[in-house]
């Protein structure tokens, strides 16, 4: 079985900078803060746990799943009492700068289809995800 388009949220944007500059916005909490969430407390390394907060008062727990420096960040996040979802952020070179592709999919869907995310990771089932 495979993931289908109707089961994932996918977005992409071409950022007007080189991949190295783009990665700086994914590489640590300071980079992520201000766009991914209003406040980010997180070490960007596999297995690290942290928090993302928004100005409307919402908050999500975050667990870093995979990091490929300069190219890819996969994480799992969830609000208290809600299902966890996987988020995969991938950078690729593009003639106009750097393409960022985002895929978000409920963990339950990934488990049901027994597959990784369509962007290519094996993002699914670490022990920390099972606990989520």
């Amino acid at each position, binding site marked *: 079985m495979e993931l289908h388009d109707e089961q994932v949220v996918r977005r992409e*944007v071409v*950022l007007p*900078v080189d991949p190295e*500059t783009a990665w700086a916005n994914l590489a640590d909490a300071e980079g992520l803060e201000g*766009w991914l969430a209003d406040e980010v407390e997180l070490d960007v390394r596999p297995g690290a746990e942290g928090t993302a907060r928004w100005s409307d008062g919402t908050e999500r727990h975050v667990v870093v799943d995979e990091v490929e420096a300069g190219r890819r960040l996969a994480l799992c996040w969830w609000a208290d009492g809600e299902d966890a979802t996987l988020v995969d952020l991938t950078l690729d070179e593009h003639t*106009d700068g750097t393409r960022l592709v985002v895929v978000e999919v*409920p963990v339950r869907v990934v488990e049901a289809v027994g597959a990784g995310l369509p962007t290519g990771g094996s993002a699914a089932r670490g022990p920390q995800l099972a606990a989520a």
Partner: protein
Amino acid sequence: MNARADDLAGAVFAALADPTRRRVLQALAERPGVTASTLAGELPVSRQAIVKHLTALREAGLAERERAGREAHYRLRPAPLTDAVAWMATTGAQWDDRLARLDRRLSAESPARR
């Protein structure tokens, strides 16, 4: 824990992950009250497999069963689909906002590239 919209969306997407289950769901939508035996005659899987798929759809809140004599009749319950679509729409809109923020930040930093 309450059954919240996000949880239901996850359950619905999981239920829809299987292509045969999607065909079963489609059959329920087209012919309310269809039986497992009828579906087994139409789809290339056993009646037992059909019953499993119908159970998964019921657990996701997508189907309901009505017993009439010896046969069970199945109907679509569309409400969870609406929740799943709502999750897609909300989550998609959140990413549109986030990526727009990131793009604005980087465009401001490097005006020469635009």
